[in-house]
């Protein structure tokens, strides 16, 4: 199973050069069965990463470009009256897929955003008193552009909380960019390394990764610090601590361990907590991200 993981990562890194950390986190997020928010400037490879992820994992995916005039029906689907059958027929929207790539999610109106968010949390769609279950697995990979805020609706804290991780890609380093320019890697060359069945097996394996009491204690101390220390305006929710543990488990799984160590938590911590700590109007304070401040203030050794 682990050589598959290595293959997946290798393929992803071939698509997105020099971003090993980010691709790993993205994979961790999917293995932990969480939704992913990618935030960066335009043209940084957000969509490329999302697409490559879906393809590599052998999942079918739908891409929706969000705009401000979009309605919930544009995502969820719509019931149309069939004259021949004399009844309404539900036409599934793009959400009925395994991976939904929601491009520029912050451009949609809050109404549309929340329609998507119900699907994210409940993994089902309710229309006209009928609920339609979404397939398994189901991921939302959303991207958003932090700049250029005119005509956008920033996701509120409650909705940010539903994304397990938020990652930033950042500019590639010199070598990576040079390599990128030299060989034009085509998206078409991406093959599925595993299928969705195998992905679910992996997810089950991730769930079996063990976490000792000492480690859970460390996690709880971290979360509690955000709740009781003065510098954090947004406290971390219990959902966040759950996500943190699941992500750490997935990280441990990728690192070929069947138990979680503090390094796993530290590796996923920034991605899992930064967007929750900063909030909608969150401004980075000082040179250090809030998540880093939090990590530095808790000693993993001393209880």
């Amino acid at each position, binding site marked *: 199973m682990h050589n598959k993981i290595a293959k997946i990562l290798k393929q992803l890194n071939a698509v997105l050069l020099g971003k090993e950390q980010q691709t790993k986190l993205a994979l961790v997020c999917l293995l932990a069965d969480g939704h992913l928010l990618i935030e960066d400037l335009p043209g940084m490879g957000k969509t490329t990463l999302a697409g490559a992820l879906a393809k590599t994992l052998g999942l079918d995916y739908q891409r929706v470009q969000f705009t401000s005039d979009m309605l919930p029906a544009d995502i969820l689907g719509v019931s149309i009256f069939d004259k021949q059958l004399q009844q309404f027929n539900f036409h599934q929207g793009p959400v009925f897929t395994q991976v939904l790539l929601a491009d520029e999610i912050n451009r949609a109106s809050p109404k549309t955003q929340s329609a998507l968010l119900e699907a994210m949390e409940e993994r089902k769609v309710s229309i006209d008193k009928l609920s339609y279950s979404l397939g398994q697995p189901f991921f939302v990979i959303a991207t958003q552009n932090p700049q250029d805020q005119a005509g956008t609706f920033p996701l509120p804290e409650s909705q940010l909380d539903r994304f397990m991780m938020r990652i930033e890609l950042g500019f590639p380093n010199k070598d990576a960019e040079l390599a990128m320019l030299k060989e034009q890697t085509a998206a078409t060359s991406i093959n599925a390394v595993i299928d969705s069945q195998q992905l679910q097996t992996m997810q089950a394996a991730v769930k079996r990764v063990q*976490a000792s*009491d000492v480690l859970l204690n460390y996690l709880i101390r971290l979360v509690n610090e955000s709740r009781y220390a003065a510098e954090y305006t947004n406290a971390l929710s219990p959902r966040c601590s759950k996500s943190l543990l699941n992500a750490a488990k997935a990280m441990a799984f990728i690192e070929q361990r069947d138990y979680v*160590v*503090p*390094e796993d938590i530290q590796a996923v911590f920034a991605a899992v907590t930064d967007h929750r700590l900063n909030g909608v109007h969150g401004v980075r304070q000082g040179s250090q991200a809030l998540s880093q401040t939090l*990590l530095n*203030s*808790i000693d*993993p*050794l001393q209880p």
Partner: protein
Amino acid sequence: MLEFLTRQSLSLILLSYALIMVLLTDQLHSVMIVFGILCALWRVAVFTGRVALLNKLMTNIFTLICSALVITLVYQQGMLSILVHLVVLGFSLKFLELKSVRDVHFFVNTGFVLVALFLVFNQSMLMAGIAMVSTLLLLTILLSLHGKALANYQQFKLLSKMVLLSVPLAVVLFIVLPRLPSMWKMPLQNKATTGLSDSVSPGSIAELSQSSELAFRSSFDGKIPAAAMRYWRVLTLDQFDGKTWTQSSQLKYQEEQVKIGKGPIFNRGSLQYQSASTRKQSVPTKENSYQIIIEPHYKHYLPSLDFAKATAGRILLSDYSLRTLKPVFKRQAFSIDQFNQVERSLLSPQSLKQFLQLPSGGNPKTKAWIATQQASGLDSYSILEQLLAKFNQENFRYTLQPALLGEQQIDDFLFTSQAGFCVHYASTYLYVARALNVPARMVTGYLGGELDSDSEFLSVRQYDAHAWVEIWKNQQWQRVDPTAYVAPERVEQGIMQGLDDQSEFLSGQYLSIHRWQANPFLNQLRNAFAKADYLWAVWVINYDNEKQFKLLQNLLKGLPWLNLSILILLLLLSAASSLILWVFKPWQTEKVPTEDRLFNKLYQKSTQQHLAREKGQTIADYCQALSQFKIEEPQLLIDFAKLYNQIKFKPSLSATQRKTLLAELAELQKKINRQFRKSLDFHKNRNGSE
């Protein structure tokens, strides 16, 4: 002006100053009291902003002058008095110049010393209670100084908590801590206090009768003797100058001997002049025994019922009265055996002459009366009985406020005023007896005493002071109490009943609770208090080394191997160990897991490489960073971290696996430390060679 002193603390300070000065009023020279009042007024004026504090130079000069003045004033009164005055002076001056927190500390500590000094003079329960209140007040000052943030009730709560917590400690210290009697000797006070004096003239006992102060208490092992038998002998007076009865030089010599601690002990036939024809004497047998708890009177007197024997620590004088070896300067308990008789002896010619001594001349009327009686053929003893009958039948009155007597005292009393109290009657009777050649002497002491409600103990107060006569008859001293013929109630029921006019009793002392004996409620209250004070005296004041030892011995009876020194050692050890336990609380410190201990060992060594672990850094990160340093095999560190993580965070490890892994980890740690040491030595050598 004084930010550190709140209005509240300053009022507390004023209050405690006033209280302590009032406590010590009895011990202080009147000048000192006036000075204290002036200090208080000055301080209040400073408090309200009318005057300024004295400056430093002025204070110093003032202190010197006052000290010199005080020493000259009270120099006569002995060391203790000088000590008290100097401390009070310092206390007052400090009170005047309170400027900082340190001053207040000084003030409060001096206050504690003064309260302790107060307890030197007063040991009754009431006084101990008052001393306790002053101590609490001083503590409150300290608390109000440091606990400004606390509300009043919180301060009160804290104070009561502290006091309550210290009570068990105080009790244990009281019971267990050995008394150190000879380390520190109380300088004796020369001040006269109430009590019997060694000379009596009509009038002096009347003064005593105005005092309801406790003289002593007594409890009996056997039956309590009837009121009329409770003649507590203290002093014998046998020298008369026409006005005043004093001790003859013979007796004075004995008293002096007592003072230097080697008085005569007239116990067994040690008396000379034992007649050859002495009858077969019956051996004195013990009738009763009793305890006396005597109030401090700074003399050697020890009241006793007839007859007592000298035992260790006591001296028996030739007149049967008891003396203590050391003056009674604190409440003290004595246990005395009462015997039915003393071994008889004859009077020496010398003493015979003394017991017949009278001033020459004077009192012609009395002499004439004696002559007429003699003329009617009566013998000496019958004439004396005639005199008693005269007291009884004629218009003699028992009063504490008799008219003044003239030059011819006996004549004036017997034929003119016919009003007086015990000393008048005793003195007259003595005069007549001696004039008739009957050896006689005056005995002063106390008569009666009041039983408490449960008939457990007698309280004898100063107003129970009494004087009576002993005449030598049938070769032994026989007690005659002329007062009994005038006012038999005095003998049987006490002085209040004896008085013809009962309003004379404790006249001028309206506040004294003893004056209002008729009020049943007050009487009950008085009795209850007397009882409590008695128990206080028995159990607290007289708890000395001996009792302590006995108590501990009783406690230890069941454990023969345990003696006192071992017990004290054990107590000290247990106190020390519980203190250690309490400080370190081993049950609260978690055991450090082995893997963490190993890491700490490694870490101690690695910090010498100047790499400290940051707070949030995990062990793997740290080892990673450390492996960049000069170490032969960096891989060891990575392995260490991996192993550590496995041991620490893998829940599925079995105990045996864990053990082997721990052994491996220990091995790794040793290797790494060795390498560290090597690289350090290498660095040192290199630095040294440079």
